[in-house]
């Protein structure tokens, strides 16, 4: 409760700071406030408290995800200090919008009433529509904002329809009541309920960019300012997956929904990985790699057992760390290349900036899932989970797709380590250097000692 209030107030404070021209204070105040919120969450660890008459349930699950969301936002704010250093206008608004979006994220990781799910997703999304258009003079940024807005509204419509149908068949928005209804149906059919589930899942799947609800993601990722892209692919994705699991994790799903999930997983894995092969623009590559990772995460959704939340938590946490680091490297390289985003801008990075190249390699290896990085443990655990639940062929398919994934990450590594060429001279601000190194070290540390990151 206190953390939610704190972050909301923090956003308003930042707006005022911006109004009175204290630009230098924006990020530090934001970071201190977020860390305070983190402490509030940590202090209540293990407590179960229901807020707002049971609409929101802050349990260990919600609290762990909330803390990850806050940490990732802090990292992004640290990056923001350098990122917004040259921007004159509306910086305070951007920070504040990210905080508001974060509130939405916190709500959907902890909802226990579907109204809150809808509200949370809207609170999460509406600031993002504005943020995606953050570069006002950029055509692509405007396109991204508009595309995201139109498709996002469409998804919200789906979600709302789904919720209404669920209400129609269960007469309640409370998650426990809906779970009880699902259990009472058993193997029978309740068309209204089934359709409700379909549409609701579609609405959530839009946020995690699962095929066939992924069309927005490459364009929006490419057009939005890099910091916002990083925010979308980490904070938003983590929150949406947390919400997804919260929604269906304890529900006895009808067979048809299962089939839908399997199809969605297979298509997401296939499309994300295969299309990523053809990408030459790094940001688009990251967009498709993000879709591919959605596929691996969905694999964990095929069958649930006690390990699932922890597996999701580990996967999303480590994925966010690697992604934040890579987007910072991209920003630096893009700046040195005067706006170019082709993967060629990484060429010869090892000679011009060895440490940065090594960290980039570690982050990419983690996304690829090579042993001793966190990404390997994350994938390993997802595979263990889905095999334990008996999805032999789907898992085999995912393993093949993991191989395809390795290919496009290795291509980028190869660029960075191309011999004989001196790459662009990147200017690395000390804070950025710190964040990137932190991500790189964390990815290896969590790969060697995976027990460190758990619920």
């Amino acid at each position, binding site marked *: 409760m206190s953390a939610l209030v704190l972050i909301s107030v923090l956003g308003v404070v930042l707006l005022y700071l911006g109004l009175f021209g204290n630009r230098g204070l924006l990020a530090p105040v934001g970071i201190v406030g977020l860390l305070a919120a983190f402490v509030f969450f940590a202090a209540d660890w293990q407590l179960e408290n229901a807020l707002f008459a049971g609409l929101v349930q802050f349990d260990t699950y919600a609290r762990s995800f909330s803390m990850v969301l806050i940490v990732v936002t802090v990292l992004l704010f640290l990056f923001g200090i350098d990122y917004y250093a040259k921007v004159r206008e509306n910086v305070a608004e951007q920070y504040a919008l990210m905080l508001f979006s974060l509130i939405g994220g916190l709500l959907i990781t902890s909802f226990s009433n579907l109204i809150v799910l809808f509200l949370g997703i809207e609170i999460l999304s509406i600031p993002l529509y504005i943020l995606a258009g953050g570069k006002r003079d950029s055509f692509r940024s405007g396109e991204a904002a508009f595309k995201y807005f139109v498709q996002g509204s469409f998804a919200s419509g789906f979600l709302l329809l789904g919720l209404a149908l669920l209400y129609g068949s269960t007469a309640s928005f409370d998650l426990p009541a809906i779970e009880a209804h699902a259990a009472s149906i058993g193997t029978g059919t309740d068309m209204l309920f089934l359709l409700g589930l379909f549409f609701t899942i579609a609405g959530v799947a839009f946020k995690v960019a699962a095929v066939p609800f992924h069309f927005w993601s490459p364009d929006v990722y490419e057009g939005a300012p890099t910091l916002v892209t990083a925010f979308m692919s980490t904070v938003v994705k983590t929150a949406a997956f947390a919400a997804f699991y919260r929604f269906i994790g304890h529900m006895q799903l009808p067979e048809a929904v299962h089939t839908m999930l399997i199809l969605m997983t297979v298509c997401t894995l296939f499309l994300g990985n295969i299309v990523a092969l053809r990408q030459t623009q790094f940001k688009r590559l990251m967009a498709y790699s993000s879709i591919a990772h959605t596929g691996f995460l969905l694999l964990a959704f095929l069958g649930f057992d006690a390990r699932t939340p922890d597996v999701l938590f580990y996967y999303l946490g480590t994925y966010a760390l690697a992604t934040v680091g890579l987007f910072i490297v991209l920003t630096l390289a893009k700046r040195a290349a005067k706006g170019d985003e082709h993967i060629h801008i990484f060429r010869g990075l090892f000679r011009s900036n060895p440490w940065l190249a090594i960290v980039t390699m570690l982050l990419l*290896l983690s996304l690829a899932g*090579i*042993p*001793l990085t966190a990404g*390997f*443990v994350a994938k*390993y*655990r997802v*595979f*263990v989970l889905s*095999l*334990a639940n008996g999805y*032999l062929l789907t*898992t*085999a398919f995912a*393993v*093949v797709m*993991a*191989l395809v994934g*390795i*290919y496009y990450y*290795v*291509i980028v590594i*190869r660029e960075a*380590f*191309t*011999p004989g060429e001196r790459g662009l001279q990147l200017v690395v601000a000390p804070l950025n250097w710190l964040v990137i190194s932190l991500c790189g070290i964390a990815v290896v540390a969590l790969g060697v*000692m*995976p*027990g460190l990151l*758990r619920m």
Partner: protein
Amino acid sequence: MIVALLLLIPFITALALMFLRPTQQAKNVALISTLASLGVVLFAWSAYTGGTVIHYNMDWVPAWGLRFVMGYDGVGLLMLILTAVVFPFIIAAGYGEKLQHPSLVNALLLFTQTFLFGVFLAQNTLLFYIFYELSLIPVFFFLLYWGGEHRRAITVKFFIYTLLGGLSLLFGIIYCLGQGAGFNGDFATIGALNFPLSTQIWLFWVLFLAFAIKLPIFPFHSWQPDTYAMAPLQGTMVLGAVMLKMGLYGIIKIVLPIVPQGVIHWQETVIVLALIGAIYGGIIAFRQSDLKRLIAFSSLSHVGLLCAGLFAWNSYGVSGSLYQAFAHALLVVCMLYISGAMKERVGSSEMGAMGGLKLRTPRLAALFLLVLVNAVALPLTQSFVGEWLMFAGLWQVNGWLAFAAVSTIVLGAIYMLFAYQRVMLGPDKWALEMTDATTRDHLVLVPLIAVTLFLGVYPGPILDLVDVPVQQLLSSLSLN
């Protein structure tokens, strides 16, 4: 202690080389490190009394079923000896190479050695897999940076090809871990898995694919010749002498215990494939005009034979295969070293450009001949012992297969002698002075040749080492 030393000596040296960049002393430092590792391994060998020695046995992340178990048995020790013996010579071969950034080269080689030790020390399937994949990474960068023509494409092909096998293996391992039945991934409990035959039949290929690519056996070999030919000399040595032995080791340690019936079911198929590769490699080797490519294809041929011998699954075949694995490692290093020495003098490894070199470099010619004798498996050489055992093993399976296997020896003799003729004999094309074998050449080649000849006369030490584990392995096979 032994395990920790083996992992830490090369690893710390590599880190030091990478960050301190002592360009002048890099090769010396690396050489000292590999010699220290060799000392540790020899000490372990002298202290070894049989059975499986476990040094560490602990949970890594208990909740997720990750365990950290390190140790070795006879077969593992043989592989450790092989790695430790070969690496000082690989580092020494670098003295003749003019590669840029010697400290990085040696750091990558030492990283590779660390992970190879890790592979042979791991006593848990998942730990084995982790080291198995890790060993690829330094090699990837080594090839990417110091490789020859088309290195960018070939390196990625090699990497992806090998990872295809690796991921397939991972899938298999996870599948086995999920089956419970008292199996926690440790080699000690690996026999507890008792899959029905129908499962074993497909699971065999899932597990075997990784090692089939690594070795490589026909038809999974297409990455190998290009990679071997393109790689810098030391890279080819690492790949050919040590890394492919991981395949052999993996088959013995993982494939056989998990799917014994699958192994028997596919036995003849694998032998036939392996022998096709052996004969095909021999024929292609004969057609090569480049000495290094010739060695690459001859390696393909030898490895096919190794795999065929192993899949005889009787004590002759398995011991012979392991023995020959050791012989092959030394042989590959010698052969490649000589091709490097010729390239140093002539400027390319094209055999068409050579000829008559015996007149200019008689000592080197003599050393080459001694290596050649081992390569064609003449009696009293190490290869003869290994190959004879493998033929005897194959004979017990099927006479015709043994016949096909023996024909590779004939092929080997043809292409090796033909190569020698083109390089060393004939008219003197090079009417200019050329340095004969230097002290360094002698220091590398003479000890290796001496070992091969000694073990050719007295194979006892190595055969004793693997005898007990092989017997255990085979008895487990007959139990099933």
